[in-house]
């Protein structure tokens, strides 16, 4: 019995948790929340994440160009740099690294903010003011993240490709016009679209993780700290797992 219990209990617990998170997400996404709150969250989640996502994309695109050039040179394929940088950025690195950076910045801040509201009874206060905390706190964050992440990913894609172009034209001897032409030539619409869809999904993962752990924060500073850590870890792992699943779904 003991080994069966040892497997069964965590499996049941995991199933319960997945079900509860799915219901939480469904409740959060039903309706749209107050427009002012969504706009405020779009600034917090989208606008304020632009610098970190842009810098990450710039350096990633630049490093990718260097790697592909030095690796491609081994079999005389150094010319593929523009195409591979473009495809790599829009399909994979733009959404994943953008998602991870937003997870680090946003999941933690959402969990800390909502967790602090929980321990200081602000969420109870919302209830006593006839306001549904899900509608007021969770819904605007989920929708703002879902709407903003594709824009962040698109911006990151462009900046990442620019990073590759910068290195390609200044260090690797590419002609500027032909680099840009080669970047476009092999890029298909679905490459870009799939990355943007991934971005929207990663946005949901990030905001959902922050809201879920924030709403379940334990008491005191330690409780909020744990909620914040758990939110970032869950969001990062969730993004990587979802990326694998979505890549399989889109390209296999």
């Amino acid at each position, binding site marked *: 019995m003991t080994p069966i219990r040892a497997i069964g209990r965590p499996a049941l617990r995991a199933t319960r948790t997945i079900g509860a998170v799915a219901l939480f997400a469904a409740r959060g996404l039903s309706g749209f929340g107050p427009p002012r709150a969504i706009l405020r969250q779009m600034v917090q989640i989208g606008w304020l994440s632009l610098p970190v996502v842009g810098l990450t994309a710039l350096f990633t695109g630049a490093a990718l160009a260097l790697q592909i050039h030095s690796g491609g040179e081994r079999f005389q394929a150094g010319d593929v740099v523009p195409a591979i940088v473009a495809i790599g950025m829009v399909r994979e690195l733009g959404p994943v690294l953008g998602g991870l950076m937003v997870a680090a910045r946003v999941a933690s801040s959402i969990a800390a903010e909502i967790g602090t*509201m929980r321990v200081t009874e602000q969420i109870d206060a919302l209830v006593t003011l006839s306001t549904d905390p899900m509608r007021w706190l969770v819904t605007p964050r989920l929708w703002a993240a879902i709407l903003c992440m594709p824009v962040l990913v698109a911006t990151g894609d462009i900046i990442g490709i620019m990073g590759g172009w910068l290195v390609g034209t200044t260090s690797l001897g590419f002609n500027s016009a032909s680099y840009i032409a080669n970047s476009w030539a092999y890029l298909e619409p679905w490459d870009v679209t799939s990355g943007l869809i991934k971005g929207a999904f990663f946005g949901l993962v990030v905001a959902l993780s922050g809201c879920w752990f924030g709403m379940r924060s334990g008491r005191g500073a330690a409780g909020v700290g744990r909620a914040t850590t758990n939110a970032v870890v869950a969001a990062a792992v969730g993004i990587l797992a979802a990326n694998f699943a979505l890549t399989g779904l889109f390209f296999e």
Partner: protein
Amino acid sequence: MIRMDGLTKSFGAKRVLDGVDLSVATGESLCVIGQSGTGKSVLLKCILGLERPDAGQVLWDGQPLDRARFMARFGMLFQGAALFDSLSVWQNVAFRLRQRMDDRRARAIALDKLARVGLAADIADLMPAQLSGGMAKRVGLARAIADDPAVIFFDEPTTGLDPIRARAIDALIRGIVTETGATAITITHDMASCRIIGDRVALLADGRIAHDGPVADMDGAPALAGFLGNADAGPGEHAG
């Protein structure tokens, strides 16, 4: 009238409420006292539906409490004021009002309520983090009464305040309850507050109501003897 019939609530093996029977008449001010950790706040949360009781029920005007209808006519002052950090003082006070009127009208009412609790209009645009503890309590009180509620709960309204500010908050609460005719329940372990705010006092001990009677009679109540005897030394032991 609010009536609690046999409210029972446990957390794990610990039974916090063990069949609480208690009522408060319309327009009456009831103080619930008890040591820290005896379930006073849990009792309030059970009434509000923030905690689900394991057994028992809460009646409002003879009917099972309809939470949405109740909340629409309800205000509460939380122990730590529980002001929303991201909103300014007037936006906190006018939180409920702004859901059904324009900002200009809501702000005017908020300023009026702030004046009622002794705060000047120049703090209206401050953020909660810029307020002292006493000011935050007053803003919380203004928010609680902003929509002229029929029922107001006060959760340890004087905790963390010095005696002078504590008595000022007590006097404000008593004045507001008297002039609005609201039904009030105050959770406290400050007996001085009890004397000012309450019409009736109930002692919660070991999950049950150990004493329930008028504030005027509490000095002679055996169940309150220990509690009253140590009142000057702060919250602590009681006989029951």
